[in-house]
């Protein structure tokens, strides 16, 4: 009798590592074949890339032990049989990649701004942060502080935006674009769905016009046309003009993303809110928008990542962002021909930021349980 009651374990082949391998990698013969092929490719590729990026690479000194100051001193240029990447170019140019041409004596201001940016993002990233409320106040005033810190004023020496560059410009454009476009986008989305014909038409016109032209065109518009519209004597900063263009562009896209979310909210929600006597703004703020934004998180992050990468287009109007500094470095006769290293580094930095954004969106989705039906069908 005892033997009959014994709990039988599932077959070895369906549990543990072996089971996982069987189900995921070797389910049937096509599946197995693809798995083997991919493993073979990785086997070929990974040792090579590790060797090139790390084991055979020069970081600061070449294989003779000399400090590298130009491309001729890279191991692989001294001896083509020897050596991988020559990261010395990144090492030597690191300052430019991170701060552009910001004066060295004032660079602490950029560092403080970077740290403050991290602090300002903290309460947005972790809902469980102690004293989150006070951190949020800081987040709201951060843009003002950052403006005075980076640009000057209030006792700081002025640093013209012409001296900004590298990651600094990329982050300023990306963060400002994303942060400003979000509220503007919400207003545009609500405006487009408004029952007041003038507002709805104006918003639709704006969105369709901006979405109908490429970002480059808008950048040129900001760079070339804006100064002509301004009264003489008012000199608008080049970076500000680009920021205006980037923000307009991003808010049009954001508006459409949020409108998609708004349209997914069942009419019952509107009716329920109205039946409680809520005004238009209270209804939207308390009932509609929280739900609409929640289901729009993936596309919102999607367009934000897109914008972050699109900021590299500002090189067209002569602003040197991270990629622009990389290209400038390649044009220095000391560092000719190190394009692999420089583009690898630039893409790595971009990957870190965009991957961070996409992870954050996954975390938000999990936290807000966006996958769950909202029970109003």
């Amino acid at each position, binding site marked *: 009798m005892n033997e009959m009651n014994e709990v039988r374990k599932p077959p070895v082949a369906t549990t543990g590592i072996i089971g996982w391998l069987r189900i995921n990698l070797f389910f049937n013969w096509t599946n197995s074949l693809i798995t083997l092929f991919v493993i073979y490719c990785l086997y070929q590729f990974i040792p090579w890339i590790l060797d090139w990026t790390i084991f055979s690479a020069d970081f600061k000194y070449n294989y003779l032990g000399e400090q590298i100051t130009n491309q001729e001193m890279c191991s692989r240029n001294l001896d083509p049989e020897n050596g991988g990447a020559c990261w010395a170019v990144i090492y030597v140019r690191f300052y*430019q990649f991170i701060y552009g041409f910001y004066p060295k004596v004032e660079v602490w201001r950029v560092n403080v701004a970077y740290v403050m940016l991290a602090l300002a993002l903290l309460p947005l990233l972790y809902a469980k942060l102690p004293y989150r409320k006070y951190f949020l106040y800081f987040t709201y005033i951060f843009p003002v502080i950052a403006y005075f810190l980076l640009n000057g004023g209030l006792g700081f020496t002025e640093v013209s935006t012409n001296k900004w560059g590298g990651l600094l410009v990329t982050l300023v454009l990306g963060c400002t674009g994303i942060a400003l476009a979000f509220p503007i986008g919400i207003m545009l989305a609500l405006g487009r769905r408004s029952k007041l014909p003038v507002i709805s038409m104006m918003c639709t016109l704006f969105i369709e016009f901006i979405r109908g032209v490429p970002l480059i065109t808008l950048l040129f518009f900001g760079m070339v046309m804006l100064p002509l519209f301004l009264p003489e004597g008012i000199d608008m900063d080049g970076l500000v003009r680009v920021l205006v263009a980037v923000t307009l562009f991003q808010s049009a896209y954001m508006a459409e993303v949020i409108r998609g979310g708004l349209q997914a909210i069942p009419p019952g929600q509107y009716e329920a809110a109205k039946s409680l006597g809520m005004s238009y703004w209270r209804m939207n703020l308390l009932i509609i928008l929280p739900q609409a934004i929640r289901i729009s998180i993936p596309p919102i992050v999607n367009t934000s990542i897109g914008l972050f990468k699109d900021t590299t287009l500002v090189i067209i109007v*002569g602003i040197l962002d991270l990629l622009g500094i990389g290209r400038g470095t390649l044009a220095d006769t000391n560092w000719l021909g190190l394009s692999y290293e420089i583009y690898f580094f630039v893409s790595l930095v971009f990957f870190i930021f965009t991957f961070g954004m996409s992870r954050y969106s996954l975390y938000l989705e999990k936290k807000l349980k966006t996958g769950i039906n909202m029970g109003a069908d």
Partner: protein
Amino acid sequence: MKKLLSIFAVVAFAFSAHAGTLDDVKNRGFLKCGVTTGLAGFAAPDDSGEWAGLDADMCRAVAVAVFGDRSKVEFITTTGKSRFPTLASGEVDMLARNTTWTISRDVNLGFEFVGVNFYDGQGFMVPSALGVSSATELDGATVCIQTGTTTELNLADFFRLNGISYEALPIETNDEGKENLFAGRCDVYTTDASGLSSTRAAASNPDKWVVLPEIISKEPLGPLVRHGDHQWGDVVRWSLNAMIIAEELGITSENVDAQMSSNVPEVLRLLGVEGNYGEMLELSNDWAYQIIKQIGNYSESYEANVGPDTPLEIARGLNALWTQGGILYAPPFR
């Protein structure tokens, strides 16, 4: 596009019809000079973030002429597309951005080219293993060529004139051309000679590539200013000329102090010991002395940035003085 640009230029003029550029620059306290976003030998930021190159030196020379201080210049980066609107709108005082002097740019766009600081031209680069010494031997070769450019038309003209055939491999960017040539997908790469030199310098083994002697187009590159402000145009023009004349007269940044007591009249005029040529330009009388002292003469700038001792290894060629087989020729200083 060009029509649009000229409209911008006209509108910009209407807005900027005020005191001369020289006064603006003096009041501002620094020069705003438009350069490329990075071109080897002409303008690129060095490791400490300072702009260096032949065009950057041109900007600094003008800053020195006006202020006597080579650091009183702000470099504004411009691309091939943004350079003309930037100059037309008054955002920069001058451009020194390897820009080819053509009639339409000089006349239609409303700019004024004040001189030529580099004579470029389209050339050919081949692997030395190919064993050709002249472009006329390239019958049947595969040529990497940027599509939609004047280089493409020049190439077709050259091969037709010489009665030889070629196969075009269309490419979009300089990088692409480089990769294709190095990978052996084309036998010849053609673009401006200075671009070929930087491509060659970027190769892992530059000796495996040769730039053929034929130059098949005229690309005079020079600084330019807005049309109509002749006083400012003169300042830029004579800043460039002063560097060329200094080379003719053998004045360098090292011997310039000794030359102050020279007995050659033109040297004394140039250095401001005699005459009042600085006043004519509304500059201080030692403006040319300062340019030579702080920047050097044309040859010094050339040798430091693009000359045979740099990785670019561009021989003087057309850019030598007229007395030495080139066509560099400045009007007399008197």
